[in-house]
Each structure stands twice: as structure tokens, then as C-alpha cells.
């Protein structure tokens, strides 16, 4: 009997697939902490955990895994997420980067999927661009509380699956120049935006469902472009009208020419690793390669921070 018996409908090899996956979680606050917990329950084995902040008192209304005792020690959100994961699974592969995601790119580009739970539209667009540069699916979560002006509020959010080559956050109308400009104008002016645990949970659970469907699908005809709206007042998650409209379309905002590192030079790669020219093997290749079975090789984060 396995702890995963109740999710065996995901496939006979689902346990192996999920454990072998490497997930990049950028932002480990209200949304990202839910995703870390749920994916650890599922048995996903690899994580790049990125967040520059430590827990504060105002986080404790929603940060999953955070404890009041963590406040005094100013425990990093990455450490809280890692603690959650290690409490739920054996030998996870984790890399923690307590910094902005821009300083985690070496680890993030090795991920199979990146999940962004960021407040800033600028950051969300940049992270999506990064993911597309390395042909990595990006799942974006966003939530806001809007003042309706009559003493009532609207809780709204969205989850978007941004596949390389397919419609992006700009195609979806979620990122616009006007929105970026408005955000820039607000910079540093307003206090923290309202966030609550249950709506974060709905959005995170929706994102986790997409992660599972990407890794070990339980039904066949999943859309390639997903844009789901959450209406917290009605308690609904529904497809945005652009989801069907843009299905099957290609993106014009992220051209294929942007893929890869701009100044990559394989000669430096070879020199850095001091790979000498090899003696010619029989059949023009390296027979050794054919004798060694390669297992999962990229599902591992950099050793400098890795603990397993």
C-alpha cells in the first residue's frame, strides 16, 4: 500500500512522474505557500523555492505553514515552504533562493513548470518572458480585492496557463501597457493590498490541478491555453471569454527568436568544463553513451543549495 493509492487514477507511472518533476515556485506568500503544500501532498519531488521575504505578522492570516513562533525568528518564506515540503515527503530535491527571482534564474531554467504568485504586473510579465525564453510552461496566479464603493468589496482573481508559443498574459489582456503604467504610478504609494486565505486557496488549487494535468493527465482533451476567472463573491471559477477565443493561436509578443541566452558561446561552455577533444570512438561516436542508461538528469537543482 502506498500513500498515493487514492490518486492512482492519475496513472500507473504517476508516482514516478510526479516525483521526477521539478517545479519552480516564485512567490511563497498566500498563493505560493498553498501550492507548495498541495504539490508536496501530491508527491512532486523537485522544487526551486524563491521568495526574498521573511514572514511578518500580516502574513499570518494566510501563509500556509507559517507559525506565530516564526515571527520572532523572522523565518524566511522559503524556509517555511521547505519545511512544509519536508514534512510531507521523503527526500525531496529542493533549492531555496531567498532573493528576487532574477537571482534564481540558473535554477529556474532547469524547471519543468514555473508557477508565479507575484503581486506586480511588471514582475509577472518578466517572469513569463523568462519562462518562454527557456520553453517552460508558466502558470500565473493573481488575486485582488476591489472596493465597490458602497461598503462592499469584490474578490476576484485569475489563473492562466501560458505555454511557450501559445497565447501569453498580454494576449489574454491581463498585461497591458496601461496597467503597467498605472502600477508604475502607484509604486511606493499604497499600502499592502488586501489578501485572504480562502481565495488564495481556490486559485492555488486551480493551479495545482493544471500542474497535475501537465505532468500526469487524468483526461485527454485539456485546452492548451487556460485562462480561468475566479469570482470570490459568487464562488465561481469560469473560463474567461478569451480562453476559447485564443485557443490554438500563436503569440506575437514573444517571438521564437527570443529563445535561449542572447550571448551563449559553446566554446566557453567547453572551456569552462575543460572538456578536451576526445579520441575518436568506434562508429564515430562515444560507445560509452550507449552503454549507460540515462535517468532523470535535469530534475535536479544546483548542488550549492541543494539538500536531499
Amino acid at each position, binding site marked *: 500500500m502506498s500513500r498515493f493509492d487514492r490518486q492512482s487514477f492519475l496513472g500507473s507511472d504517476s508516482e514516478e512522474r510526479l516525483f521526477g518533476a521539478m517545479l519552480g515556485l516564485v512567490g511563497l506568500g498566500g498563493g505560493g505557500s498553498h501550492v507548495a503544500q498541495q504539490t508536496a501532498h501530491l508527491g512532486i519531488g523537485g522544487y526551486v523555492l524563491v521568495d526574498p521575504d521573511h514572514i511578518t505578522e500580516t502574513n499570518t492570516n494566510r501563509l500556509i505553514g507559517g507559525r506565530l513562533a516564526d515571527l520572532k525568528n523572522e523565518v524566511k518564506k522559503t524556509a517555511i515552504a521547505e519545511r512544509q515540503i519536508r514534512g510531507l515527503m521523503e527526500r525531496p530535491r529542493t533549492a531555496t533562493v531567498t532573493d528576487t527571482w532574477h537571482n534564481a534564474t540558473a535554477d529556474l531554467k532547469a524547471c519543468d513548470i514555473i508557477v508565479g504568485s507575484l503581486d506586480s504586473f511588471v514582475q509577472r510579465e518578466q517572469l513569463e518572458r523568462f519562462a518562454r525564453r527557456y520553453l517552460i510552461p508558466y502558470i500565473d496566479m493573481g488575486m485582488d480585492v476591489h472596493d465597490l464603493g458602497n461598503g462592499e468589496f469584490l474578490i476576484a482573481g485569475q489563473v492562466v496557463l501560458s505555454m511557450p508559443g501559445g497565447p501569453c498574459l498580454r494576449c489574454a489582456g491581463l498585461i497591458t501597457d496601461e496597467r503597467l503604467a498605472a502600477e508604475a504610478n502607484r509604486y511606493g504609494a499604497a499600502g499592502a493590498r488586501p489578501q485572504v486565505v480562502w481565495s488564495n486557496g481556490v486559485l492555488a488549487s486551480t493551479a495545482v490541478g493544471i500542474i497535475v494535468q501537465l505532468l500526469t493527465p487524468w483526461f485527454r482533451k485539456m485546452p492548451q491555453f487556460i485562462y480561468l476567472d475566479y469570482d470570490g463573491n459568487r464562488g465561481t471559477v469560469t473560463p474567461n471569454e478569451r480562453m476559447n477565443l485564443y485557443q490554438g493561436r500563436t503569440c506575437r509578443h514573444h517571438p521564437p527568436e527570443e529563445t535561449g541566452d542572447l550571448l551563449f558561446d559553446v566554446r566557453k561552455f567547453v572551456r569552462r568544463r575543460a572538456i578536451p577533444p576526445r579520441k575518436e570512438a568506434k562508429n564515430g561516436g562515444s560507445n*560509452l553513451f550507449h552503454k549507460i542508461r540515462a*535517468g532523470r538528469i535535469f530534475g535536479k537543482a544546483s548542488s550549492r543549495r541543494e539538500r536531499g
Partner: protein
Amino acid sequence: MDEHAVRTPEGRGVNVQLRITRHLLHTVRLDLARPHPFAYERVGFLAAGLSSRANDLWVLVRSYRAVADGDYLHDPSVGAMMGPEAIRKALQWAMSDGVAIFHVHAHPGRGHPRFSGLDLREQAKFVPNFFHVAPQCPHGALVLSDVFAYGHIWLSEDRPYDVITRFSEVGVPLKEWSPL
């Protein structure tokens, strides 16, 4: 480094992962399946961007170009023989765009494909030439089946090829395989 990573005879491992979107891979397969006026099979070229980290090298496929009908040579002894113009155009692509170039053809079927002896001999002749025009990029060759792919990559002109150790077909759902 992962314990399963491929090791060179010197003991240093290079993990080469090729990522390609399902949409592009499907486009390539459809194009290669088109009949040619006289050749038995079709060939083409893929351009790729690159990235690395420690022992890991990522080949990130950007786009595909078919070899034009008129750039094949009549040679009934082989499935397809590219003429010099086909090679020239691919070299031009590598030089002008500064991209890694991978020759691609198909072996229909649902299994894990491998290169034929003829494929290996021909690759060894023309792939190293790409380093004359784009030495900053690795270059190589791929063979596709209907389901999987297999490939060789040259990291420099003076090294024999390495085997691409992992393929990622980026679509919904994600598909990955290691051909070794």
C-alpha cells in the same frame, strides 16, 4: 551531477536536453511526411537557441525550415540526398542568425528511432562544417519517429558527437523521454 548523467571517457558528464514545443514538432513531422517528386523521404533543418548551467546544456528549438524540392539530388541509392544549395542555405541561416542548426529527418514508426549507418557517415561529413560559420553554437542532427526523437550534438568541430540525453516535448501534457 546526477548519478545517471552520461559521462565522457574523461569522466566528465554533459547533460544535453532538447526542448521543443509540440506545435513545432508536429509541424516538422507533417512537413517531413510530404511526398517529394523523386526523393523517398524529406529532410530539413531546425534552428535553436541555447543555454547552460554547470554540466547541463539546453537546446531550445526555435524554428524549422524544409529543404526546398529543387535542392535534392537524384540518388536512388539513398532515401534523400541534399544538394550543395541545401547545405549552403543552412550554413547561411546559422551564420546570419547565430543559431545552432540541427539536420532533421524521419524514420516512420512508433518506436525509439536511431540513425542508420549512412546517416552517421553523412552527418560526420557536413555537421562539423557549421562550426566554420557559427563556432559559438553546437550543431547536430535529429531523427524523428512518429512518437519519439533521437539526436547527436557536436560541441566543437574537433570532438565527436555526444548523444542528446533528454527530450522535452512542451505541450499539454508535457512529454519527456531519455533515449539512452
